[in-house]
């Protein structure tokens, strides 16, 4: 589904953020990515969808075996890539419902997801304006599920969200994944989302590189025990 080959990405100031990174996510596979702040995880997601400010210096991104790095953001979305942003922008005057209606014509589907995610009263609000952290995350997940992408890129879906909201989101996402054969890349710090989603594989990103790959719960357990410092020394050279 997604294949990244030897990707090197630089920021506008010229600094290398992703370094010769290779990664594969198969059809229907759920990959969890761990990594400390600043390791390049969000940059990876932004690069896959094509957000500006990051330049591909080397390497390729393939989606459904087609190279996508020259496609616009909207073209990438249309072929089936969807993102749940960690920090979505506030857009004054643009209603959540307007975006929902663009993504899904059927009001029944819109209202059903809105109900499940406790967002019904947010539909006529300006998107993300004065939303709390949890409300933003629910709104992001809501839009993502209406988009029905083949590949879901979830950037820290549970950061800043209380346990109750993680539970709501986790259950809705799990139900969606059970009913739709999607590939997923989840970036997570806390791992709480893993209580609801059964991921197939986990990996750790350090300094712009994937430094290990293993069963998600094993990696998560090790990180909780020893922190990220050990990741680099104990798990390097493991195949992606």
């Amino acid at each position: 589904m997604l294949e990244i080959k030897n990707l090197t990405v630089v920021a506008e100031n010229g600094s290398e953020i992703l370094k010769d990174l290779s990664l594969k996510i198969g059809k229907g596979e759920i990959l969890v990515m761990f990594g400390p702040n600043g390791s390049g995880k969000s940059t990876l997601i932004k690069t896959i969808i094509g957000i500006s400010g990051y330049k591909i210096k080397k390497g390729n991104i393939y989606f459904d075996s087609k190279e996508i790095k020259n496609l616009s953001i909207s073209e990438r979305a249309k072929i089936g890539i969807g993102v749940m942003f960690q920090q979505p922008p506030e857009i004054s005057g643009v209603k959540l419902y307007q975006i929902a209606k663009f993504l899904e014509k059927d009001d029944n589907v819109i209202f059903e997801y809105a109900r499940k995610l406790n967002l019904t009263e947010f539909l006529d609000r300006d998107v993300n304006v004065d939303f709390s952290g949890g409300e933003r995350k629910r709104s992001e997940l809501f839009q993502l599920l209406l988009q029905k992408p083949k590949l879901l890129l979830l950037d820290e879906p549970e950061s800043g969200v209380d346990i109750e909201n993680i539970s709501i989101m986790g259950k809705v996402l799990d139900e969606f994944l059970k009913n739709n054969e999607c590939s997923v890349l989840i970036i997570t710090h806390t791992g709480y989302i893993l209580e609801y989603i059964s991921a197939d594989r986990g990996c750790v990103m350090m300094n712009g590189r994937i430094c290990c790959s293993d069963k998600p719960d094993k990696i998560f357990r090790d990180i909780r025990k020893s922190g990220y410092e050990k990741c680099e020394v104990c798990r390097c050279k493991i195949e992606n």
Partner: protein
Amino acid sequence: MQDRKLKEEFKKLEEVGYDVEEKSRAGSFVQENDKVLLADIKEENVEILSIEDAIEKFPEVREGYFGKAFEKLGKDYDKDTKGGYFIRVKKGKKVLFPVQACLLLKTRRFKQKVHNIVIVEEGAELYLITGCTSSKAADESYHLGISEFFVHKNGFLNFTMIHSWKKDIEVEPKSIAIVEEGGVFISNYMSFKPVRRIEMYPTAILEGKNSRGRFNSIIISYPESYQDIGSRAILAEKGALAEIVSRALSFGGTIIARGHLKATSPEVKGHLECKGLVITEKGRIHAIPELETLFQDVEISHEAAIGKVKKEEIEYLASKGMPEEQAQSIIIRGFMNTEILGLPDIIKKEIDRITKNLTEKSF
């Protein structure tokens, strides 16, 4: 009542909010160049006449109102006017539907100079929509609109003015509103089409205790247009409250977005908000917010922000599969969203209809 021929003539006025059928209007006034074509009343609580007829019929208009708002500010005004409307709502009366007025420039190099007077008597309520526009033939014409608004004690006036000119026309509205104790004056101004020059700086004098004034403006500017548009509120009595909100959008023209809150009494409040979007490289916006007080015990503030449509916002919508151009268009429509302006539903629907038509044509 309008005859069929007039109705057909007036069809083109729909783009400035004119409702030919008058189904949801309390009355209508139409002036073409210097000729009054219609002064029609549908609701008995409102009086609509040409200014000349009103002066002739009502001595109190000549003696107590005509020119008095300008005199109050010590400002001179053009006496060489012809036409204009007189609209009055009597004490305690509320007009259910808006009154509509339309000033049309019809011929080449015509100088239309009108003097309007609107009186909302004690406890009365009025919504007024004025559309100003020009026909295709009205090349290099000029419009001067002198308007005086009198909102008496506890009166309410919601005045919407929609400008839709063409690129070789020059326009100078000059308006002053006087608001008495507990009175409310709301001005909604929209300029949607190319124009050579508009210069206006309407003023509301909030001279009554607990009087309120609000100016909402949406200004769109096109290449070679010059729009110097401001709003001023003078907070002249305790408890007075004023808000000025403007949205400026330049597709290549120059917009000077002014705002002035002046406290000439203690214990008053005011806020000024000016936001601008420059859509094309050649667009120019100059925001000039001014705050002034003669007293210590006041709360007046402003916020101003100008710039381009944020790339982050376009990319966010694009990531949902929305083409970048459509994303930009939606963001711009949102920026102009009349909900920000806190307009009443009946006016909002009218303006939303007009902005939808215009933005669909523009983008």
